[in-house]
């Protein structure tokens, strides 16, 4: 019987060896797969215990911060952090941080720094090992809160977007998208925000695709100047036919293009054609360049390219159909694209960058929203180095285009953007939205001061009417405030 007992003990030893192997299997071998499962609550739980870094504007004002609660209050459990956003209109840029819906915007882009995970120095690993409370790093934006407030006011209540950036560095000083959501209420209002037909979660400045209207004549202008197709003094003269003044063209389906937008003006040089936004003149310029050359410039100005930015951007489009510029409608396509309609679909940020490229000697800066990352104590850990994204046109062509844009503000449709004592360059746009019952989108793009540009801007007010009446005066207010900012 003793032998039997010994044998049985041996059996149990084997059984427990099996248990040990199973432990090793689940705890080590299969661990990565198991931990990556979506029903693992640990990452979310851990994230809720980290005091996330703050998000600051360029002057150090707090835009987002996390508070650890010592005692439980409704909606805020003890030992967990809650995120507070002090300026909700910036929500489309900053995004939100939610344990339920994940991070978005800057909160997602800089999650590694804000959560402190990106730090991997020995001290950090030791602190984590000892379960010391974790504090993430602060992210300092290029956005200026004071300017942002002016932009929000200038945009008003309607839908629209505005971007102000430094044309040399690409630092975005203000970025607004209306309507916006309040990141403080993202969890309680999620369904409402998501279902809202006005789409407040969409950052219109970086993801809204609009027909640019006449503001896009700037691309045609700069391309034609560089190609030598025209000079500043090239004359344009048209016979306007009644009613209202139309001009007969060869490429249009009805053979006529309206010249209503420059009444009484039928003869001008290139500057005048741009300042008074003559569609016929610009369609002729575009047709002279031909589709291959024209599309090459569209790409040089950043169309059809993924735009690098910390937060998601939409690719600006020169066409929807690949054969648009080469099929049956090719003349109509090129002519209408050259004055800003056609199939163009462009983000406000892209338009601001086009203006910036003209202002910055033809070099388009790489846009950015994050200035630097610093520790809670203020020690700088990482800084964004300004870079040129692409060369759009030669400095010579840019310089000529710049002068014509200044002329457009001085004595053209963009005159409502004039600022006393400052040379402003700009272009208005009144873009057909495709919905013929609705009013057109009101656009303005520009830069200031012309001698040494410190800001480039794009403003769009959806369905608001003429660019000269709505977007230009709004842009003027914004530029005045931006010029008053201390330089960097």
């Amino acid at each position: 019987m003793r032998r039997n007992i010994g044998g049985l003990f041996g059996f149990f030893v084997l059984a427990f060896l099996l248990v040990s192997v199973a432990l090793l299997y689940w705890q080590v071998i299969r661990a990565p797969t198991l931990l990556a499962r979506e029903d693992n609550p640990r990452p979310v739980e851990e994230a809720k215990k980290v005091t996330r870094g703050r998000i600051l504007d360029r002057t150090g004002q707090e835009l987002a911060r996390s508070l650890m609660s010592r005692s439980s209050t409704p909606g805020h459990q003890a030992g967990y952090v809650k995120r507070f956003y002090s300026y909700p209109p910036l929500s489309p840029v900053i995004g939100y941080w939610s344990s339920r819906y994940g991070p978005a915007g800057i909160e997602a882009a800089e999650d590694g720094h804000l959560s402190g995970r990106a730090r991997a120095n020995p001290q950090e690993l030791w602190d984590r090992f000892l379960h010391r409370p974790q504090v993430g790093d602060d992210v300092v934006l290029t956005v200026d809160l004071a300017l942002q407030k002016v932009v929000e006011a200038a945009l008003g209540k309607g839908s629209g977007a505005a971007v102000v950036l430094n044309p040399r560095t690409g630092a975005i000083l203000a970025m607004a998208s209306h309507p916006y959501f309040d990141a403080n209420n993202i969890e309680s209002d999620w369904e409402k925000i998501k279902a809202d037909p006005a789409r407040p979660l969409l950052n219109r400045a970086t993801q809204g695709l609009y027909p640019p209207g006449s503001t896009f004549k700037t691309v045609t202008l700069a391309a034609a100047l560089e190609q030598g197709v025209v000079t500043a003094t090239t004359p344009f003269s048209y016979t306007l036919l009644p009613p209202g003044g139309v001009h007969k063209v060869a490429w249009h389906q009805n053979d006529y293009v309206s010249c209503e937008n420059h009444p009484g003006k039928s003869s001008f040089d290139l500057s005048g054609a741009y300042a008074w936004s003559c569609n016929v003149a610009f369609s002729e310029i575009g047709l002279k360049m031909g589709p291959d050359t024209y599309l090459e410039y569209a790409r040089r100005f950043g169309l059809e390219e993924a735009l690098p930015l910390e937060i998601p951007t939409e690719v600006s489009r020169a066409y929807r159909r690949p054969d648009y510029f080469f099929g049956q409608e090719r003349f109509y396509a090129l002519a209408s694209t050259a004055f800003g309609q056609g199939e163009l679909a462009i983000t406000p940020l892209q338009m601001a960058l086009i203006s910036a490229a003209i202002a910055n000697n033809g070099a388009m800066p790489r846009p950015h929203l994050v200035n630097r990352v610093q520790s809670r104590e203020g020690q700088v850990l990482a800084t964004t180095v300004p870079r040129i994204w692409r060369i759009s046109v030669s400095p010579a062509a840019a310089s000529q285009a710049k002068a014509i844009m200044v002329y457009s503000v001085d004595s053209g449709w963009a005159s409502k953007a004039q600022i006393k004592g400052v040379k402003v360059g700009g272009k208005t746009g009144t873009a057909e939205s495709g919905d013929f019952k609705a009013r057109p989108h009101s656009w303005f793009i520009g830069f200031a001061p012309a001698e040494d540009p410190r800001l480039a801007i794009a403003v769009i007010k959806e369905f608001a009417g003429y660019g000269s009446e709505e977007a230009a005066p709004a842009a003027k207010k914004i530029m005045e405030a931006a010029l008053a900012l201390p330089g960097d």
Partner: protein
Amino acid sequence: MLQRLRVTELSLLVTVGLLTATGLALLGLVKTGQPGELARPGVIFLGGITLAYLWLVAIGFRGDQLLLPIVLALNSLGLLMVRRLAPGSADRQLAWVLIGLAGMLVLVTFWRDLTILKRYRYLWALAGLGLVALTLVFGTDPNGSGERLWLGFGAARFQPSEPLKILLVIFLASYLDEKRELISLSRLRLGPLRLPPLDYLAPFLVMWAISMALLVWQRDLGAASLFFGIFLTMLFVASGRASYLFAGAGLFFLSSLVADRVFAHVHQRIQLWADPWSQTARGGYQIVQALIALAAGGLLGTGLGYGYPEYIPAVHTDFVFVAIGEELGLAGALGVLGLYFLLFHRAFKIALQAVDSFNQLMAAGLAIVLSWQTFIILAGNLKLIPLTGITLPFVSYGGSSLVTNYILVGLLLLVSKEPK
């Protein structure tokens, strides 16, 4: 003199005391920032241990000195984990520990004659059957597990399957001890197969029937496999015939297959075991969360109080070992396995050293109870076999189980002090 003062036991108990104090201080620090927060239960537990030790010295007890410290080390860890996982139940668990310890001491002090167990075997068998019958008729399901495994007396409840384990072992030890010599005298044949003598065959079939009844009627897969396992292994110890073991295991396996086909709830259990991943909404959630918790523990664990085992439903009764795996890591879990290994080693050694054949069979049976039960719950926790609701001895929350296991240890201690 050293033997009289039980110095080996004393030094090991000091280690257990240090383990307890460290664990409670750590848990207090993590949960409230105060290392003294859990001083009261710590003092009560250590006081209980001290009194038990002094008592054993006072009555001049000469039994095994390793068994109790091993058990108390496991129990200390169990108390710590219950306090970690279900703080509201921790005081009640501590009370059960003290009751269990007291019961064990009373047993080793006053029960001098083990032959009483042998002589009245049909009384124990009757008591056991009575318990089963009562549960079948009056069983309640206080925690909504779908299994009516408890007997209630007013506010108190207990799980009859726990004391039943011991009654079964005593009865089988006595029965098999008497019939041991008949083993080679079998003349029964079924075709080419030589069947065991009727004295083996009859209880064999009865036990099988009882296990199947438990499985199908009470849905208690844990108790069914535990009882049948106890029976088969004791039969093997008494007869030395491995063929009985394999035949029985084969029979259990085959009848489980049939139960899987015939009974929907058995089928569902087995399905959940085979593939819980795609069925988290239908009951697979518990085991999936348990395995994720193990993965989160890794080699060294998250540290006591820093894991999230509370996401596993019924963690303090069914998955304490997994919680240990998460917070103390593979290292801690293997340490616990090591303690169990020492416990079984000790229990089997007591069986080996027993002189009287009944005592030897009974001690082996008790060792088997501990080993089987631990293996079944651990293998269930690790998805080696379908999960069952039985407790992890001395670690899981549960009063019936604790008291029963302390009585079991008392019986082993009694066997160990018999003249060798």
